[in-house]
């Protein structure tokens, strides 16, 4: 095609670099991540070692999977605030059921509520058109309540973490976290789904212009229901992985990951208004947040100052990233 534009003068290097970055938004994001790591290394020489890397990856993975749920739902203009509750539920239920059942059975039992909550979310958003934020907030309240009721019935039975999950959550093989065994396939699957499958296309389309998608024959409720079920199941799996990592089932296990998971997706370039973004950015976003947490843990300063710094850095990173990828 002879339609490429004729640019009057040779473009200056700075602009070319910018355009290069704008076309590959992952690169500036990775640069920002590396910068944070460098700062960390400067502040605490020697911290960036094999063990630290493994730790960071271990903690970033559950966050990244939950952020994947947010990425996918955000692409459709939604959000899934119930992931924390779902992950906690499946972790807690698995840990208490494994006392009575085979681990495989316990895991299956643990994923049932995940599917149910996903289904309810999907139907509420897709069929009844409830705003996703409210819908998922509501189901997460309901889920928490159910979990509390459930925990009373199992107080006496104690809890156990199957060795397999502990191995997956905390184990290292040649210094590489075993959790990658679970995460890499999931990540590849999400990226592939978003880029190369019909379902992925529909997520973008529905989020961008639902009416247009409808006119093209897309049934909104089908897409949304499938989406929220997938999101919930992923959250359930995250819960299982996370309990393997933390090894202490509690009723608020994964709750603290919810806001960061939204933040990771947004930092990674996914628009909360839908139609724009992808999962690779989100993974880097999750890593950035994890490294940032470490950075602030390591710095000795009053807790207040620590939080201020956290907020400022998140803002700075996102702003810098946007500046770089903006093509104008």
């Amino acid at each position, binding site marked *: 095609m002879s339609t490429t534009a004729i640019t009057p003068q040779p473009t200056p290097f700075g602009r070319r670099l910018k355009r290069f970055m704008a076309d590959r938004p992952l690169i500036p994001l990775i640069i920002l991540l590396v910068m944070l790591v460098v700062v960390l290394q400067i502040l*605490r020489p*020697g*911290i960036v*070692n094999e*063990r*630290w890397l493994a*730790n960071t990856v271990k*903690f970033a993975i559950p966050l990244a999977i939950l952020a994947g749920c947010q990425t996918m739902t955000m692409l459709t203009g939604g959000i899934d605030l119930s992931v924390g509750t779902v992950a906690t539920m499946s972790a807690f239920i698995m840990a208490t059921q494994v006392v009575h059942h085979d681990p495989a059975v316990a895991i299956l039992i643990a994923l049932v509520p995940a599917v149910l909550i996903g289904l309810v979310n999907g139907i509420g958003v897709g069929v009844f058109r409830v705003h996703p934020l409210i819908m998922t907030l509501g189901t997460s309240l309901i889920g*928490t309540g159910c*979990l*509390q009721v459930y*925990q*009373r019935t199992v*107080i*006496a*039975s*104690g*809890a156990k973490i199957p060795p397999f999950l502990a191995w997956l959550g*905390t184990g290292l093989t040649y210094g590489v976290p075993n959790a990658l065994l679970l995460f890499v396939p999931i990540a590849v699957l999400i990226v592939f789904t978003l880029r190369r499958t019909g379902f992925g296309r529909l997520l973008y389309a529905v989020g961008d212009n639902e009416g247009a998608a409808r006119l093209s024959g897309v049934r909104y409720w089908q897409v949304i229901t499938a989406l929220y079920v997938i999101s919930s199941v992923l959250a359930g799996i995250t819960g299982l992985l*996370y309990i393997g*990592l*933390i*090894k*202490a*089932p*509690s*009723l*608020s*296990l*994964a*709750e*603290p*990951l919810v806001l960061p998971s939204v933040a990771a997706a947004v930092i990674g370039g996914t628009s909360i208004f839908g139609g724009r973004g992808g999962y690779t950015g989100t993974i880097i976003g999750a890593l950035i947040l994890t490294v940032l*947490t*470490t950075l602030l*843990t*390591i710095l*000795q300063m009053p*807790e*207040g100052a620590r939080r201020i710094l956290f907020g400022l850095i998140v803002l700075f990173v996102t702003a810098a990233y946007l500046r770089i990828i903006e093509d104008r």
Partner: protein
Amino acid sequence: SAEAKYTIGVSNTVQGNGWREEMICAIKAQALASGEVTKLNIAHRNTDAAGQLEDIRNLISAKVNAIVVNPADPAGIQSALEEATKAGIVVVAVDQAVTEPSAYIISNNQEQYAYLGAKWLFQQIGGKGDVVYMRGAAGASADSDRDKGFKKALAEFPDVKVVHEVFTGWQQDQGKQQILDFIATGSPFNGIWTSGIDNVIVDALVESQTPLVPVVGADNAGFVGQLNSVEGLVGAAVTNPGSIGGAGVTLALQILNGKKPAEQTVLVEPQLWENVTAEGKAKLKSVADPSLSPEWPVSISIPEWTTYTKDQIIACKGPGE
């Protein structure tokens, strides 16, 4: 015993935390065991002092005979407690003191809790060295009480240095990531004091194959189990019984029945169980309870104050359920 005739209201502002869940179950179990309570009216959710004011006022509207309250803040709920007393309701604060003078207080001594554990830890490391100080939630009043106790102990040991101070937010996952991050820096440390996020810390030490250092935690079932079983682990559990809720019910019933205590405030003094001396080991063995959820404190009863059985607290059923 006496016939059931009282309604007791309960107000608690943290939900989904093992300690608080045990407290609620202790309240239920004690109400049932006493046989004097017809109904419990429990407001139990995550909220702040203002939310607790709302809950207490709702309980006043519900015309309960007594209110057992775990205060979000000692001073913040004073006005509602005052209103309650004016309405003829007996108010008992558990776990933490309140500033309202008409309220009765039966509480764990948080300052002493921290002091006891910290002092043991500092002695254990020979009076000098570097310790990691893993606090609770920034801005919580229980945390600042404990900080006072910790600082008091620290002042007695001038050679002990805090190399690392963080807030776990009383979250297991945060605590674990924080200690792993610190381990990764390679900085040496001689001991760890925790504000109850303890078993994940031991886990982290074991997983990262770091030499074990003395660890002080609470009497959570998980940590007590580790003190008994993890090889080479030296540590101490300081009691902080969630069953204080049950004691609160007992005190409230006593007052309702006209037996006012001599003092407005009753402090339940913490105990320290270490796994260094033979005596301590035996104690730890005897209290260990692997059937409990690892987040639950093992001290599920307080002698003289609670009368329920272990089955009753585990069943977690109040009167009429």
